[in-house]
């Protein structure tokens, strides 16, 4: 049980750091935004493992759901500006 939890935590951690690196260093803006959403989604699974279901729900609904769409609304309005 405990070994499984630790393995899952390490897996989530590696995936989160990979997604965060893509979000910060990647060339394409839409992929960066989606990676930031992915970091939030993986973080919400991590919160569930850390016995915080309330926080996991909030992070999944707000951090990875609504925030990603806010970015895409603005990204759609500033076409041409994302390569500066």
């Amino acid at each position, binding site marked *: 049980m405990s070994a499984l939890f630790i393995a899952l935590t390490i897996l989530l951690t590696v995936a989160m750091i990979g997604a965060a690196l893509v979000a910060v260093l990647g060339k394409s803006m839409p992929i960066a935004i989606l990676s930031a959403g992915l970091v939030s989604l993986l973080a919400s699974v991590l919160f569930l493992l850390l016995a915080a*279901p*309330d926080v*996991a*729900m*909030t992070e999944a*609904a*707000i951090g990875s*759901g*609504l925030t990603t*769409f*806010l970015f895409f*609304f*603005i990204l*759609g*309005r*500033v*076409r041409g500006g994302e390569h500066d």
Partner: protein
Amino acid sequence: MIRKFAALLLLAGIAAIFMGLLFTYEPDPELNTTARYYAERTAADIGAANIVTAIVVTYRGLDTLGEVTVLFLSAAIVGLVLASGRRKKTAKERTVTPAGELLATGSTLLAPLIMLLGVYVFVNGHLTPGGGFQGGAIIASGMLLLLLTDPLKHFSHTLIATVESLSGILYVAIGLLGIFLAGGFLDNRILPIGTLGTLFSAGAIPLIYSLIGLKVGAEFSSILAHLSETEEL
């Protein structure tokens, strides 16, 4: 180049502090005094099964009022920043490709169900994980689905503002009732506490959390509507 070097130097300093914090961190073997008080007294004093809800709504209710105010301010400023001095384009001037059959049919089926789930989440906030903030975000997600189906859809800002301000006023009014009928501001014992684990328990917590849920849902919807009503530049 020098800019990147300075940034890396700063990050190395922060990383050194973090390493110090991480390697000297010792998890507590027991709950600390505050947490122990909440764990032992919540069932008798508040009657809510979810202790996080008891802390957010009652023990630290004033903080939550402040938080909702901050959220209201940021929603209001988003509206102010995006709306100042702009000519509103009418729907005819903007052309969008219509949504596909699948999205149109799916949204008419799913949007009411999503709203219902949001209401369920905040009404049961004192029993299960979830509550006003999560429920409000789920309601706003339902609004988002409607906006994705028809980007030209114009939500009634008057309705959103009315729901938002009414629930805010009622929230503060219930808090004030706590001063007169119970122990203090935002005390939940103005209604009977009931048995632990049933829907009508925990005094005024379901009522207060539902109002918070409506307020947060209205604020998120207003942010979404404002951002989606911006024009392409």
